[in-house]
């Protein structure tokens, strides 16, 4: 596609349930990133994937968070046993390695944990 897409755009869940968020990066982009943005805040890095290298998981806030990426395409971010503090917008970005690693962001998934 022309840009980064994410689904669902909105997700409401009950505390304790698991959720899966999906990201489709720009075709040909080898790097993919997940960020979290709480209301009125800046973005917090969660995890990034670069080609076939081991992902950098240093930003994941707890072991309830995990992410996978299939080759250089789709990625899913999974949050297990959701808590109310997980409520936020989850943003995905992708970039190429052409010398200017500009990150292109998707529209985000707005997660609300009741």
């Amino acid at each position, binding site marked *: 596609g022309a840009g980064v897409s994410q689904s669902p755009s909105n997700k409401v869940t009950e505390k304790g349930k698991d959720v899966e968020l999906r990201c489709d990066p720009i075709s040909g982009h080898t790097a993919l*990133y997940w960020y979290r943005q709480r209301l009125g805040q*800046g*973005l917090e*890095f969660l995890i*990034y994937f670069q080609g076939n290298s081991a992902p950098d998981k240093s930003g994941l806030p707890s072991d309830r968070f995990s992410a996978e990426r299939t080759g250089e395409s789709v990625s899913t971010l999974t949050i297990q046993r959701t808590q109310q503090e997980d409520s936020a917008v989850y943003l995905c970005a992708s970039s190429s*390695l052409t010398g200017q*690693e500009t*990150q292109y962001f998707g529209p*985000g998934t707005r997660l609300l944990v009741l």
Partner: protein
Amino acid sequence: GIQVEQSPPDLILQEGANSTLRCNFSDSVNNLQWFHQNPWGQLINLFYIPSGTKQNGRLSATTVATERYSLLYISSSQTTDSGVYFCAVGWMTGANNLFFGTGTRLTVIP
């Protein structure tokens, strides 16, 4: 991580006015990007500018890496410039996570 401070936190401008947004960071960086987040939440990359000066229409940016700051200039502001402007930095030129500031919220009034 790298600490990123942006100022001012909020800015209200009359349409047509000029403004300067500042970003200070705590470590040497090889990656610096400016983003605009519109009122609908979409983040748009404005500049990839780890050093030097770039211009794009009414916007320009300057990064002085040795002094650990970057400036974003908006000239002849328009209501469509409203939103939050984020500065983000990273250690490496390759793919790496970015550390974001808390943003400058700009409101341009007609």
